[in-house]
């Protein structure tokens, strides 16, 4: 039971909004120490895992300089121009189309998209642009709502599409696990049985994006964005 102290530390740390890096480091050190590792061993593990997982920062470090240049030269603005030409475009529709493309492409084994590669430079500006074309300048709270849902579209599409394809990390991990305990499982079985859940994730997201559109419509028609929108933003 004492080993769960790290979990407790993380929960408390998040609750009191302490610096996440500090919380994670302290939780790791304390958990390691109560489980009988030495401080030297715990720090070594931090170093080893940090180096082994450097690929995690790759997409951001490589693509932000590119999008920094493109954004300076009007990438977001042009994305808005493009979306304004489309009829019936709404924030929710843009996100649903992106989610659909992301999920289907993941299901056939293609990893296109990503928060740094697609959501920030294209999907979020297009979704915001669609709302701006309809209602004019958006208050910060509405912008936040749209952007958060753009990130949600990316995550939902990728997670639930990915495991429909047999060669992704998730399926291979399951296969490896069953091999190690001596159970034969076909990779296609695991991939295909995922389809009903993948479809339900798509349908539920569609409902959520429809609700987002309604929320935007209500906010933007009820009272025009004035200084009052700022006070409720906290």
């Amino acid at each position, binding site marked *: 039971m004492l080993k*769960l102290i790290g979990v407790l530390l*993380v929960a408390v740390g*998040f609750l009191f909004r302490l*610096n996440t*890096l500090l919380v994670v*480091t302290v*939780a*790791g050190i304390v*958990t390691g120490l*109560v489980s009988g*590792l030495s401080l030297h061993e715990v*720090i070594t*593990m*931090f*170093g080893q895992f*940090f*180096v082994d997982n*450097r690929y*995690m*920062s*790759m997409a*951001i*470090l*490589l693509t932000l*300089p*590119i999008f*920094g*240049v*493109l*954004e*300076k*030269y*009007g*990438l977001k*603005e*042009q*994305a808005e121009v493009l979306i304004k030409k489309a009829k019936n475009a709404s924030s929710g529709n843009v996100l649903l189309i992106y989610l659909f493309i992301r999920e289907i492409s993941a299901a056939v084994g*293609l*990893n296109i*998209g990503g*928060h740094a590669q697609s*959501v920030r430079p294209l999907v979020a500006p297009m979704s915001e642009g669609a709302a701006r074309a309809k209602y004019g300048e958006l208050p910060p709270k509405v912008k936040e709502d749209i*952007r958060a849902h753009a*990130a*949600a579209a990316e*995550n*939902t599409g990728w997670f639930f599409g990915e495991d429909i394809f047999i060669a992704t990390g*998730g399926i291979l*991990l*399951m296969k490896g*696990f069953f091999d190690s*305990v001596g*159970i034969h*499982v076909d990779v296609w079985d*695991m991939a295909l049985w*995922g389809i009903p*859940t993948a479809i339900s*994730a798509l349908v*539920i*997201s569609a409902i959520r994006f429809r609700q987002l559109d309604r929320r935007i419509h209500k906010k933007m028609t009820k009272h025009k964005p004035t200084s009052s929108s700022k006070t409720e933003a906290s």
Partner: protein
Amino acid sequence: MKSILTLDTIYYLLGIIVAFIAIRIARDPNHPNRLGSSLFWALFSITFLFGNVIPPFYVGCLVIIMVLLASFNRVTKSNEAETPAEERVAHAQRLKNKIFLPALFIPIFTIIGTLLFGKIKFGNWALIDPEKVTLISLAIAAVIAFIASMGVTKAKMDVPVKEGSRLLQAVGWAVILPQMLAALGGIFSKSGVGTVVSDIVSDVLPTNYAFVAVLAYCLGMLLFTIVMGNAFAAFAVITGGIGLPLIVHMHGGNPAIMAALGMFAGYCGTLLTPMAANFNVVPAMLLELKDKNAVIKAQVPIALSVFVINTLLMYYLVYHF
């Protein structure tokens, strides 16, 4: 077989990019935290350039210095202003849809690379490390897209340094959070936190009912993923501790269906936890959201609804096929 391009090649490139940020901050007299911020990015650069040669213990020490710098608010963004909106609109009107070309090159060349580059060989040398095809293809695609973006915009060489540094500083110390959480997950696994969690779940629930076994497994995947921030880490522990003994051995469920839907239960957990920083926290920084939990809040209704449907699906499917 040896490879010409490996992940290490790309890490050198990343190290150089990050070093540019450190140097830029060091030379910026208006930076609010010149020393601390510059040191943070310099240390991060060292982990890319020399991570393979420095013993892990010393890398760990460097990492802890980075954490302390961030904890004492010494790592902040610069005061550099964004390009004015009028200027961006003017560029957009001039360049029109050409501006999208470099952005589209990233997915296009990642796909081409994934399908083709892995097969290119020169005698005994492979062009890229066959084990890391997708990651290396992404890096190659990024380099091509970078060249294209400079060509399309005709920007000067200092623009990518300035803008890249500004955007990466906006993400700030959160950029190392995914790697730190991976380390925490590793320490949790090694310390046996997973076994404790799965013991508790199977102790308190009446798992002799077939439905309760499914519920215990799905809840275990959900909760353990929330704790670890990673469904893959939860999978081995919870499937070994709850799924196999209860659903497959005790109630005769189908292991393939259990695993496929069990992983999805874990993904619902990923949507709910700040521990999955690269999916939930880093994007909030990237999108410049005030509320760092806004992405998770947007995902809560999706995650919980899918979790319920997924659990019911598992109950109906796992015992019938």
